[in-house]
């Protein structure tokens, strides 16, 4: 199994969730994060002082899926989160050794 993490623009969250849902993904977890990247925050003035906004708000989606669905999931996210603008974000995939559903104790595939 794999964990697909995607850092995306926050306002794309609902769209991406909808797309994953229609792929049959049953669950995912979202975290609010701040991103630093090529997309530079602008400089602003506050009380007459210029300052750079270095961190931009992003949403991190984490979804654990079976190996064979990784690519579909990646494509779905990439398609929906894409605005063509810098700062659209990244998708990372990392291996997962085990999954457990707390309620039932089921493991592996069944736990998803």
């Amino acid at each position: 199994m794999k964990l697909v993490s995607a850092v995306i623009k926050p306002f794309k969250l609902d769209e991406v969730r909808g797309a994953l849902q229609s792929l049959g993904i049953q669950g995912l977890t979202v975290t609010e994060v701040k991103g630093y990247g090529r997309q530079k925050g602008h400089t602003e003035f506050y009380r007459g002082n210029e300052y750079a906004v270095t961190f931009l708000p992003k949403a991190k989606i984490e979804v654990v899926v079976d190996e064979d669905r990784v690519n579909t999931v990646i494509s779905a996210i990439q398609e929906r989160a894409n605005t063509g603008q810098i700062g659209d974000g990244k998708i990372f995939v990392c291996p997962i050794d085990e999954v457990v559903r707390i309620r039932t104790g089921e493991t592996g595939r069944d736990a998803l």
Partner: protein
Amino acid sequence: MRHLGKLAGLGGAVGVIALTLSAPALAEEAAELTATSSESAYILNSLLFLISGMVVMFMAAGFCMLESGLVRSRNAATICLKNIALYSIAGLMYWLVGYNLMYGGNTPYFGSFTFWTHSDVDISGGYTSGSDWYFQMVFCATAASIVSGTLAERIKLWPFLIFVAYLTGIIYPIQGSWEWGGGWLDAEWAFSDFAGSTLVHSTGGWAALVGAIVLGARTGKYGPNGEVNVMPGSSLPLATLGTFILWLGWFGFNGGSQLALGTAGDADAVSRIFINTNVAAAAGVVSAMLLTQILYRKVDLTMALNGAIAGLVSITAEPLTPAIPEAILIGAVGGLLVVIFVPLLDKMRIDDVVGAISAHLVAGIWGTMIVPFTNGDASYVGQAVGVAAVGVFVSVASLIGWLLLKFTIGIRVTPEQELEGLDKTELGLEAYPEFSR
């Protein structure tokens, strides 16, 4: 129709006048009946003090909200505590020594070191002694409120409160005695400061300025290469609420300073003051907005709020004599000053968390110096003498106070405490335990 009397209504002013005047037996000899009786005047004068005092008291809440909105959340509970504590201490000190030191009238330089007591009812005195004390007390508290904002986020709690006791018990009353207490500034220079641009606002501002210098800037505020690091306020809606409360309170601040409501002339004067106070604040908002739009291509809400306060402070020295367009001008300049001085102070590495020095001291000087423009009884020289005298005295007295505190119990928290926030380290709690980061 909503205006020209309600002749057919449930009764109304015009109707009563007609009735009174048409009562034949009394028409001539009772002409005086149309005037307010001295007891009514006494009551109305006292009522003006009490109502005005109430809204000025509420300004303590205004300062508290403004400041807690402009500090970072990690220091918001501490600034709340400071605000309610300083209002409390000011009220006690002004009774214990302040009032009589200001109005005790022994010498041209200060009054007497005694605590205040009520006088018996004396209608010829014009108002109850207590209503006067109450009104004067809330002014004293205002001066202290100004200091807390500037020094926020790094000053220790108790040393700050000791300074407040000193400011409200000693510094404020002594300089106040020179003018409002009928001392030398009043007698020799015809200095004119209707509601306290200098006596209240600049006094608070000077104490804050000297405090900011002695205390130093917040850790990390100014970088080694002249960078100014921005530390945005945690809740601009609360800061806006605070400004509205201050604006409301200012009607009492300036209007009550007419000191009387017992005659038609007084009622007219209070009305004029209300209007000038309002347009000056409005002009301060608009001018600050326009200037930030021009300078930075965006309007800075916090500057608009400071602009309102600066407009209010500017008109405070003379809210009665200006015609409305003059009041607008006076307030508008106040709004511009604040937009210019806030970054200027940052350049000078004087760290004023809420802009109080710009809004209260700078605008207070402006307001005081412009009095002769609309009030022929004041002179530019007299005004300058007053501004300078109060400035020197308050600065020196504050400096002594701050240095004494600094070299005895210390006035500043450690940088670690600052980073963690004063709420946790000084109070052991958090202003927003579920939200803040």
